[in-house]
């Protein structure tokens, strides 16, 4: 009888210890897993925030363009989105994740907001190294710098490229942009400036359009927005064009108020009336051509003014 009782007590102790121990172990492992995931997300968020800072040296100032590259320790993924209706001037967001074990990627980090830059890129970019280059955008005064971001592993084969575009890109020494001629080989995305059949990206300089066959979408461009149209997804391009138009409007307000200020010093500018007419939202990039011709008129008046309101060195 005694023996039986002892046996039951021991079994209960063991069961209790196993259950409680198992629960504690489960909690510890679950907690550790959560902690690792949170730390990983924190690191990815920090990386995305640092990446934004790395685009600051790409501000061109007086330069015609700048380029640099960013290398990651592991293969990484960058995610982008764009919202033109966020507050007054819109925003872009960037998020980061990198390869962990095998082909698996870690959980995407938090979104980091960018409000003062226009990054032309695909919605999702996977690379160990990326090339960035920037071009100033004038309309007719400087509006901003356009930043283009491409994976280094993705070649772009440019066919029958106009000399000005070729010179402009060659100066940046981007290894993945290859200008195709009869002698060199190129495997990658074909960018054609002629009516060549089978090209992924078709550029029509006369119409100011870029057609992306894979996505079946055509976007319009003026000036150096051409590079944005080639290297970014049509959605991000259209969104950034609308954000740029909002920046144009805010800058226009500043220039209109500048006219009032400089008139106090007997410095007369005749562009006020024409400049007022450029304000208003843009529905799509197809309206860029009209805006450009309106800005051309503004620029002609500014050039003839005794007192020039702005510098138009990059406007054609």
């Amino acid at each position, binding site marked *: 009888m005694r023996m039986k009782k002892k046996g039951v007590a021991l079994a209960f102790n063991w069961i209790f210890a196993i259950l409680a121990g198992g629960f504690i172990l489960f909690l510890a492992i679950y907690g550790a897993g959560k902690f690792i995931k949170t730390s990983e997300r924190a690191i990815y968020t920090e990386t995305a925030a640092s990446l934004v800072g790395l685009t600051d040296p790409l*501000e061109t100032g007086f330069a015609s363009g700048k380029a640099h590259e960013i290398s990651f320790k592991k293969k990484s993924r960058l995610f982008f989105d764009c919202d033109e209706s966020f507050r007054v001037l819109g925003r872009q967001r960037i998020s980061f994740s990198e390869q962990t074990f095998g082909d698996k990627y870690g959980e995407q980090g938090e979104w980091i907001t960018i409000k003062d830059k226009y990054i032309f890129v695909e919605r999702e970019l996977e690379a160990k190294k990326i090339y960035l280059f920037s071009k100033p955008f004038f309309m007719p005064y400087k509006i901003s710098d356009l930043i283009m971001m491409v994976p280094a592993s993705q070649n772009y084969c440019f066919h029958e490229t106009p000399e000005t575009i070729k010179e402009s890109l060659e100066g940046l020494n981007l290894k993945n942009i290859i200008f195709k001629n009869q002698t060199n080989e190129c495997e990658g995305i074909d960018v054609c400036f002629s009516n060549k059949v089978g090209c992924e990206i078709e550029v029509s300089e006369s119409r100011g359009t870029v057609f992306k066959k894979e996505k079946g979408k055509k976007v319009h461009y003026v000036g150096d927005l051409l590079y944005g149209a080639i290297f970014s997804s049509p959605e991000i391009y259209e969104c950034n064009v609308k954000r740029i138009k909002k920046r144009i409007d805010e800058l226009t307000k500043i220039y209109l108020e500048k006219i009032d200020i400089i008139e106090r010093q007997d410095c007369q500018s005749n562009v006020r009336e024409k400049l007022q007419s450029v304000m208003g939202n843009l529905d799509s990039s197809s309206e860029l051509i009209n805006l450009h011709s309106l800005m051309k008129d503004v620029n002609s008046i500014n050039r003839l003014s005794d007192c020039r309101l702005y510098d138009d060195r990059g406007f054609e």
Partner: protein
Amino acid sequence: MLQKAQLRIQEMAFMIVAVVLFFVLVGLFILSIAYTGLSEEATRIAEDRTLSSIIVLADSPELNCIRKTNCVDGDKFINLIGKNAYLNFWPYSSLRLIKFSGFGKEKDEMLKCTKENYPDCDLIEVFDKGVSNERTVGSFVAFCRKDNKNDAVYDKCEIAKLIAGTKLKK
């Protein structure tokens, strides 16, 4: 025997509570270290951003001069006051410019610029979000504006200090 078993269960229950508490405390300790580091890192990134962007800020379209680099066009800059669109546009908690006339003066001695008293003033304050824990970064720039002398309009330039602030996370 029953009492002894109950005692053992009680002991074990206390032990389990102690072990769980221990894990919780260790977890909290690790989390506090990790998140202290995180907020420091966030401050560092924000400061780096302020520093790297203030160097090129003078060349941004809202501030730049005609054919001059690292130069603020005062006739444009003054119009940024009260523009809500720019309140959250740059990554700063405050943005101001001290003209040469304000050098060596305390902040309360400086005459704040408005569109009415410009250019006869010392301090152009574009915005100040009024954060209590702020670190500022300054950069010397050329400050140019249109002036008139003997009926001739010319660009009058002087030195100025462009100052941007970053909110510290801690």
